[in-house]
């Protein structure tokens, strides 16, 4: 899934003009040659090291890149979370399970990038959007498949034989990265670099391979194989809601060179593949509880990172999606935040209601009380406002804005 937040294909008209396989895929939503999960076998074993000169060169550069990423202050330092994810790799990593590394970086976008030397970078934006362990493990399985099937070096060699604009992008990524003394591993450029790498490395076929193998790895590890299709389904729905809020249509041309299958076609293929690997009578688990326990600590931060971007449609979708497992104070609070930041006519009332409902839950964060108090104060309900603000100060006496809130209470 190292394909960027949205991997849309070419738009329909272009596809139909070009004709052929692509057009068929676009029209029916199903790739005419679905890769069979049963055909996907690992091409590498444990402790793999490259032999060919060009692969060795690529490996060496990537080692440098990994050094930079590992040393970046954008990486989330949470040993418990790291060991949880290592545990997931162990289940779906196949022969390379012990060789994998995962770096979780604090960037609020939906993305994951697999590097050819066996390490993956997962953005916190992706982690936020995963509802359960099966979905997260599905992402890991997909990335693992890119590595197990040696996609990077295959695509790299494939691209070399074509004289096309991708080569320029490869060059610009390398040279521009070097131009200001910034290593290609610098996470500041990673979002772009990840996109470039993904554009270069993974064409439609390789993405389909990773989907097919990922589904198989997921099922073999005892997870619900439909989880991977769900992830795409969620992303599409989120984008639709985001675009709807901004009164526009969901963008279909994000992936500049259209090398990826559309999310719709991937979803369709994934559903078929999932059915294929599902063995009757076996109980497949989504493992929601263990997932929630593992990410419980970081989830408030990730919700915060997302909501403060003020993309109301996307944030609303995410909150509602997570709330399928049950509403709580945290989710109601962020609902209020979404409205407060959106601030259209009537949103002040909605936000006030959101905070008022959040504080009814035992897990309401202290911030909910402060905003509840401010909303009450603006509505002229002074006594209630005072009570709410006092409650805030009681819960967080050393809050950074305590001085200001105390003054609000006095005046």
């Amino acid at each position, binding site marked *: 899934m190292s394909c960027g937040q949205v991997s849309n294909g070419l738009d329909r008209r272009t596809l139909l003009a070009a004709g052929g396989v692509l057009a068929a895929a676009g029209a029916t939503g199903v790739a005419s040659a679905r890769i069979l999960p049963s055909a996907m076998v690992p091409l590498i074993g444990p402790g793999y090291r490259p032999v060919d000169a060009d692969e060795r060169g690529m490996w060496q550069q990537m080692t440098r890149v990994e050094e930079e990423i590992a040393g970046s202050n954008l990486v989330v330092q949470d040993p418990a979370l790291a060991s949880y994810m290592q545990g997931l790799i162990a289940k779906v990593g196949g022969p390379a399970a012990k060789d994998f590394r995962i770096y979780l970086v604090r960037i609020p976008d939906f993305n994951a990038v697999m590097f050819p030397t066996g390490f993956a970078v997962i953005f916190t934006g992706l982690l936020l959007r995963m509802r359960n362990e099966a979905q997260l493990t599905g992402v890991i399985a997909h990335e693992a498949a890119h590595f197990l099937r040696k996609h990077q070096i295959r695509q790299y060699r494939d691209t070399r034989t074509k004289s096309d604009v991708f080569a320029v992008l490869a060059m610009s990524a390398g040279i521009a990265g070097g131009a200001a003394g910034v290593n290609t591993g610098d996470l*500041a450029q990673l979002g772009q670099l990840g996109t470039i790498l993904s554009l270069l490395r993974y064409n439609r076929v390789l993405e389909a391979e990773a989907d097919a193998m990922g589904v198989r790895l997921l099922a073999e590890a005892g997870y619900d194989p439909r989880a991977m299709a769900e992830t795409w389904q969620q992303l599409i729905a989120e984008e639709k809601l985001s675009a709807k809020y901004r009164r526009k249509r969901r963008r279909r041309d994000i992936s500049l060179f259209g090398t990826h299958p559309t999310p719709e076609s991937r979803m369709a293929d994934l559903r078929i593949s999932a059915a294929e690997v599902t063995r009757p009578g076996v109980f497949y688990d989504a493992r929601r509880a263990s997932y929630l326990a593992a990410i419980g600590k970081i989830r408030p931060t990730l919700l915060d990172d997302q909501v403060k*971007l003020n993309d109301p449609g996307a944030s609303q979708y995410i909150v509602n999606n997570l709330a399928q497992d049950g509403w709580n104070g945290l989710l109601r609070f962020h609902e209020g935040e979404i409205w407060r*930041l959106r601030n259209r006519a009537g949103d002040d009332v909605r936000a006030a209601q959101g905070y008022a409902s959040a504080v009814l839950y035992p897990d309401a964060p202290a911030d909910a009380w402060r905003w509840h108090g401010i909303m009450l104060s603006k509505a002229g309900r002074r006594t209630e406002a005072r009570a709410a603000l006092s409650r805030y100060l009681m819960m967080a006496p050393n809050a950074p804005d305590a001085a*200001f809130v105390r003054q609000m209470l006095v005046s």
Partner: protein
Amino acid sequence: MKSVHGLGVALALMTLPACSGVGGGGSGFGISNYTLIRARETSVGNGSLRVTPPREWNRQRGQLFVDIREVEDWTQNGPLLDGISFVTGLKSGDTLVRQTRRDDRQVPKFRSNMTAPEITAMLESLFRVRGGTVDFKTLGLAPRPFLGQAGFQFDYEHLDSDEVWRRGRAVGATVDGRLYLILLDAARAHYFDSTLPDFEAITFSARKVR
């Protein structure tokens, strides 16, 4: 204001012509986007505020399509390292940066009935949406008089996607329904401390003229 570091710089660079290769490089590119501010009282923003800097500063020229008339940016060592921004009389319903209705992520509009926490939340969103900020921490929010009104002082720090921690302080107040604010944002290592005295002097000297 133009985005704090990345976008503003990026847009500035896009207006530069490619180097013609005629020796000398540097100043052959064209006119700099910076003009000199002398160490004496000067108007900022839309002219409704006057401040007196204790030493010379560099004023960033407005960029077409990006600039907001009520906002002005200064820098001492370049926007990647430090900057002081002035917001003068921003009206209710306006934003600190130019954005289109169709942008996915948007900086919230200012509203005249905003409390200080709402104004600071607006600033935080500005950094996250436009400034490439991935982590933002409020260090303090306290009352502070400004322009003769009951204003606020906001202290914060943030980690940006270039891996640099930056620190900031903003002092502001809503006057007659309009926002007045002076904000310092600089690299946490060395540059914030070295520009803070100037910021405080400028803030104390600030007076509203209309």
